[in-house]
C-alpha cells in the first residue's frame, strides 16, 4: 500500500489531473471539459436478466482463463498419481501379495476399469465444491467484495444461481480433463475397459453431478464460518472422497452392508455410479432411476437451499 501511494501523490492525481491537460485554463469544475464521461448522460441500454447473467459468466470465464494452469494442474495431479501408482506401479511390482488385488485376475475387471469413472467423478465433485466455496469465502470476508456483483441489476438469488453455474462449469471441465489422463495411464494388460454405453446417462450425470456439487459447495460456503474451513476439509471433503465409491463400485459393498447404506448420504456415490452406468455398463451398478432421481432432485433442492442461505448472507 505504501510504495504505490507515493507515485500517486506526486504523479497524476484523480479527476482533477486528467482535466488539467485538456482544459489548462483552470476550469471551475475539474471534470467539466469531459461532460460526457461522468454524471448523468445519454440513456444506458436496459440490462436484461439474461444479459447480466451472461456478463457474469463472461467474468467467470475471464478469471478462469487467468488461473487455468494453476487450477487445473491441481485438479489433475492427484488422480494422475493415483492411476500411476495403482494401475501402473502396483501391477508391475508384483501380482502376488497385497498388490494382487489391484491386478486384473482371470478375466475380471482391471482396477483401472473401476478407477476411471471413480476418479472422473471425484474430480467433478471436489472441483465443483471447491470452486463454489473458495471464492465465496473471499467475497464474504470483511471487505465483502461480493458487493461488486450484489449491486448488479438482478435479484440476489439469481447471483447465487450464477455462482452455481460457474462452479458447475469448472467441475465439468475438471471431469473432462481428468478423463483422458486416467484413461491412458496403466501398465500393459491393465487397460480399463471403458466405452460410452449410454450417452444420455453420461450427459445427465456430468451436468447434474457438476451442478449438484456446486450448489452443495455454495450451501456449505454460506453456512460455514470461514475460520472453520479447515474443519470442513477434514470432516466433509476427505470422508466424502474416501467413501464415495471411487475405488470400488457401490454394488461391491454388498459385503459391508451397513456401509453400503450409510454411503447413500454421500452425493459423490451417485455421480460415480452414474458414470459407471454410462462408461462401464458391463459392471454391476446402481439402477438408473436411483442415481438419476437423486442427481436431479438433489440439484434442485441444494440449489434452492443455497440460493436462500446465500441471499441471507449477502443481504444483512
Amino acid at each position, binding site marked *: 500500500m505504501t510504495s504505490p501511494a507515493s507515485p500517486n501523490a506526486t504523479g497524476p492525481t484523480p479527476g482533477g489531473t*486528467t482535466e488539467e491537460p485538456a482544459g489548462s485554463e483552470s476550469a471551475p469544475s475539474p471534470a467539466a471539459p469531459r461532460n460526457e464521461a461522468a454524471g448523468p448522460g445519454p440513456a*444506458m441500454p436496459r440490462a436484461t436478466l439474461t444479459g447480466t447473467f451472461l456478463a457474469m459468466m463472461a467474468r467467470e470465464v475471464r478469471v478462469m482463463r487467468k488461473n487455468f494452469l494453476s487450477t487445473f494442474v491441481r485438479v489433475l495431479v492427484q488422480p494422475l498419481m493415483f492411476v500411476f501408482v495403482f494401475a501402473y506401479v502396483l501391477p508391475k511390482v508384483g501380482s502376488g501379495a497385497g498388490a494382487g488385488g489391484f491386478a486384473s485376475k482371470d478375466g475380471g475387471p482391471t482396477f483401472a476399469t473401476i478407477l476411471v469413472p471413480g476418479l472422473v467423478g471425484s474430480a467433478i465433485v471436489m472441483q465443483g465444491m471447491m470452486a463454489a466455496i473458495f471464492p465465496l469465502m473471499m467475497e464474504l470476508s470483511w471487505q465483502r467484495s461480493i458487493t461488486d456483483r450484489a449491486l448488479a441489476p438482478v435479484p440476489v438469488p439469481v447471483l447465487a444461481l450464477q455462482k452455481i453455474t460457474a462452479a458447475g462449469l469448472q467441475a465439468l471441465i475438471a471431469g473432462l480433463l481428468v478423463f483422458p489422463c486416467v484413461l491412458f495411464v496403466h501398465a500393459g494388460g491393465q487397460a480399463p475397459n471403458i466405452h460410452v454405453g449410454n450417452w444420455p446417462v453420461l450427459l445427465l450425470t456430468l451436468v447434474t453431478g457438476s451442478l449438484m456439487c456446486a450448489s452443495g459447495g455454495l450451501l456449505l460456503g454460506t453456512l460455514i464460518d470461514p475460520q472453520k474451513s479447515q474443519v470442513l476439509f477434514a470432516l466433509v471433503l476427505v470422508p466424502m472422497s474416501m467413501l464415495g465409491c471411487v475405488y470400488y463400485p457401490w454394488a461391491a459393498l454388498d459385503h459391508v452392508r451397513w456401509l453400503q447404506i450409510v454411503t447413500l448420504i454421500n452425493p459423490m456415490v451417485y455421480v460415480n455410479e452414474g458414470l459407471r452406468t454410462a462408461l462401464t455398463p458391463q459392471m454391476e451398478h446402481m439402477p438408473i432411476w436411483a442415481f438419476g432421481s437423486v442427481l436431479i432432485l438433489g440439484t434442485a433442492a441444494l440449489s434452492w437451499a443455497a440460493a436462500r442461505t446465500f441471499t441471507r448472507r449477502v*443481504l444483512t
Partner: protein
Amino acid sequence: MTASPGPAVRTVDLHKTYTSPRGDVPAVRGIDLEVRPGEFFGLLGPNGAGKSTTIGMLTTLVVPTSGTAEVCGFDVARRPVEVKRRIGMVSQNNTLDADLTAFENLEFRGRYFGLGARDARRRAEELLELFGLTDRRKGVPFEMSGGQVKRLMIARALVHRPEVLFLDEPTAGLDPQNRANLWELLRGLQSRGQTILLTTHYMEEAEALCDRVAVVDHGTVLASDTVEGLKGSAGTDTVITVSFDGAVPEGVHALDRREGVSRIEVGDGQVRVFARSPAGVLGELVAAGAAAGVGVTDAAQLRPSLETVFLTLTGREYRD
C-alpha cells in the same frame, strides 16, 4: 434520464436493528430523509452513528427492519432491481473485484448493466482516463494505493451513469491532495446534475460540498438543514473547552448564570462552555482555576461551525 419528478431519495421512519448472537443492535432508529434530484446531501455523524447502515438500506444491501425507503420512487425492499439500475455506490471499504484488473472492473460493471462488450471497453477506457488511472489499467486491486482504489471505486460507480450516487466516507484515509482532487471531482459531477448522497466524518467536507446536511447520531437525525441554516440555529454558540490539572473548580458553575452563556458541561477534569458571546469566558475559567489552586493544561475555543453544531447537538467531541 433524471426524469423522476419526486425526490431522488426518501426515507420515512426507517429502522434497522441487527440481530446478532450477542444481542440486538439498533443501528438506525427512525430516520426521515428527503434528497431532491441534483442535490448534494451529506450525512454527518460519528463512528457507529448508523451512516453506513442507512446507505446500505438505500442501496438494497441492508434489509430495513421497518419503515420505508425509496430511491427514484422505487421502494428498496420491494423493487431492489429497479433501485440498483439507478444507483452508484462507493462503499467505505475496498469492494473491488479482486480477481480482475482495474480496467476489467470497469469493463464488467458496464456489461452487468447492459453494455455490449465493445461499448463496455470504450466506457472503461473513458473513465480510466477521467480518473487518471490509465497507467494503472492492468493493476490489480490489492496492488493499488488507497487513493487509486477510491478513484477506481468511484469510476466503477459511474460506469452506468446512475441517477443517484452514494458515497460512504469517500475521503477517509486519503492524503490532502487526493482529498482536494476528489472534492473537485465531486463538485464537477454535481454541477452537471448528479444527485449525490455522501457520508462523512469531516465537518469541513460537509461544509465544502453539501447543499444540505443531516447530522445523525445513535441512529436518529438530530438536525437537518442547509449548512448555513444549521449554523444559524443550533450552532451559533462558540464552544470553549478548558482542561485542568486537577478537579474542575467549583467556581466555574458561576458561569452558568453569566450573560451570553447557553450552558456548561462539566466532565472529568474538563469543562465546556457553550456561549453566544464568548468574550471573557476563557479568562473567567482560568481565574476560577487559579482561585481553587488548579492549573489549566489545555484550552480551546471553537467558533460557530458545523463542528460546534455537532458539539451542541450531541455533546460529543467529533472524532475520526
